[in-house]
């Protein structure tokens, strides 16, 4: 069965080529010794990468994005852990609608979230736009992702382990730190990593809510209009793609290790 070469196998390989193909042109052209992203390739070079590090405004944007992404991933995970615990361990009245409400940012177009936050920040609260307002917007969209990951994890292991700990005389707090949290750890780590990636790559909300300082995607977007900046943009894009891919692989591998869940939805 595994080795059977049929239409479906060919389709699967073509599918993967389709979703990866266009993106892989970016690293290809970033190593090409030319200002244009065109065939035929002119020759191998690393100079676009070297030039990138000399670019002060780009490095500032990288730093801003890193700062925001770290804060966002820590805060959204810190908020999502107790919330997921509450929704999986207690029969809360109205639990279903609450989960539904908290998942809303997944289906609201991000431009609506962005303008809604823009309106309340500028017209109602009168706060200046800054990197902090971007971070606030990012926390909002990261919480549903963190909760999905954590709730799947918390539902995936046997609650009798926690009951045993309580029966043996541990307080709720001790049980949490010595039983629940270590078991939920893979979920926590992947929630941290995914939150980091979402925030680091997010463009629309950052574009609307940032003040004078750029995040990396906003900077990248401003560079896309200049054809002569293309190689630098490609080099930067390549590094971002590689970084995100590595983080996603780590997050997914950690999440799948350990307690096996019988639920195929927990992927």
């Amino acid at each position, binding site marked *: 069965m595994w080795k059977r070469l049929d239409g479906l196998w060919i389709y699967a390989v073509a599918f993967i080529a389709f979703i990866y193909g266009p993106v892989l042109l970016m690293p290809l052209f970033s190593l090409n010794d030319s200002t244009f992203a065109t065939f035929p390739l002119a020759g191998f070079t690393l100079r676009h990468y070297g030039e990138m590090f000399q670019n002060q405004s780009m490095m500032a944007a990288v730093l801003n994005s890193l700062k925001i992404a770290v804060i966002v991933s820590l805060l959204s995970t810190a908020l999502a852990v107790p919330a997921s615990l509450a929704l999986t361990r207690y029969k809360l009245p109205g639990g279903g609608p609450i989960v539904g409400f908290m998942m809303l940012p997944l289906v609201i177009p991000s431009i609506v979230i962005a303008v*809604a936050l823009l309106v309340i920040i500028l017209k109602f609260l009168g706060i200046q736009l800054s990197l902090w307002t971007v971070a606030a917007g990012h926390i*909002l969209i990261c919480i549903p992702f963190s909760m999905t990951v954590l709730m799947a994890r918390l539902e995936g292991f046997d609650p009798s382990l926690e009951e045993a700990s309580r029966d043996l005389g541990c307080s709720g707090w001790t049980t949490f730190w010595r039983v629940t949290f270590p078991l939920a750890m893979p979920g926590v780590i992947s929630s941290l990593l995914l939150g980091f*990636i979402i925030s680091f790559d997010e463009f629309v909300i950052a574009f609307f809510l940032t003040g004078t300082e750029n995040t990396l995607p906003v900077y990248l977007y401003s560079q896309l209009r200049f054809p002569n900046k293309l190689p630098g943009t490609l080099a930067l894009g390549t590094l971002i793609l590689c970084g995100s891919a590595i983080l996603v692989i780590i997050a997914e591998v950690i999440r799948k290790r350990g307690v096996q869940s019988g639920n195929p939805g927990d992927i």
Partner: protein
Amino acid sequence: MGFGLLAPALTIMVLMLLLPVMALVMLSFWSQSGFDIDRSFTLENYWKLIEPSDEPTVWFGIPFYLKYPIPVILMIKSLVMSLVATIAVIGLAYPMAYFVAFRVRGNKAFWIILLTIPFWTSYLLRVFSWKIVLGFNGAINSGLMYLGLIDAPLEFLLYNPTAVIITLAHSWVAFAVLPIYVSLEKIDRSLLEAAADLGDSRWQRFWRITLPLSAPGTIAASLLVFIPTVGDYVTPTLVGGPGGTMIGSLVQLLFLRQDNAPLGSAVSIAMMLVIAVLVALLLWAIGYRKMRARRS
């Protein structure tokens, strides 16, 4: 106890989602006068979206008797473009999900991760990569010219609705595989064996068992693609050109360029309502609730 744990996250969500959306609704009932906002209640913004006129604006042969027809036309255009993209996505994703659910043995996790990575990598960069593929000086044009198949770059590749639809489909297709895969994976294999024992052919089994039982996941996947793509802003801006603009581009224009936030709010609210009503109608028409109840 339970509510105490939930409170911090829920409070943040209420403060940062519910209140801003309510503020957006309020603003849509106010009006812009010069640089200031006139805070007296008015339906002017909504009226502007549907205000009739005697002079029709003809778009694709359809006359629109509206004074300011742009929002309505862009809304219809966005819905159609998203619908086409969604159909393409489901058509492409379903066989892939079927493959992972039924054909892959052992290392399903490998395929799932392979399908997950693109979804998590920068949306901006994935869209931009299509600009490199389709552009005037792009990979297809320069490649074909290098091979001597064309003499001049093909200009119809980029900056049109088709480019937007291709890019949208490409950006979301991997995301749609997962819900479909889950519903396929949950199908009790003994049902398929029973059908085979009773003499059903492979196609009959697919039409009578696999497809109906995977319908809830497929519908969920199509909604997860359709809803956010209607309001997408990045793709039309980067690869759409003037002809490929969508309703999200109008929202951006009204807020950041024309400085008419009240009208922009009205457009955003109207967009969300139209999407919500269409989705509710669709789910009602196909009896989604019953379908899910039957499944479990």
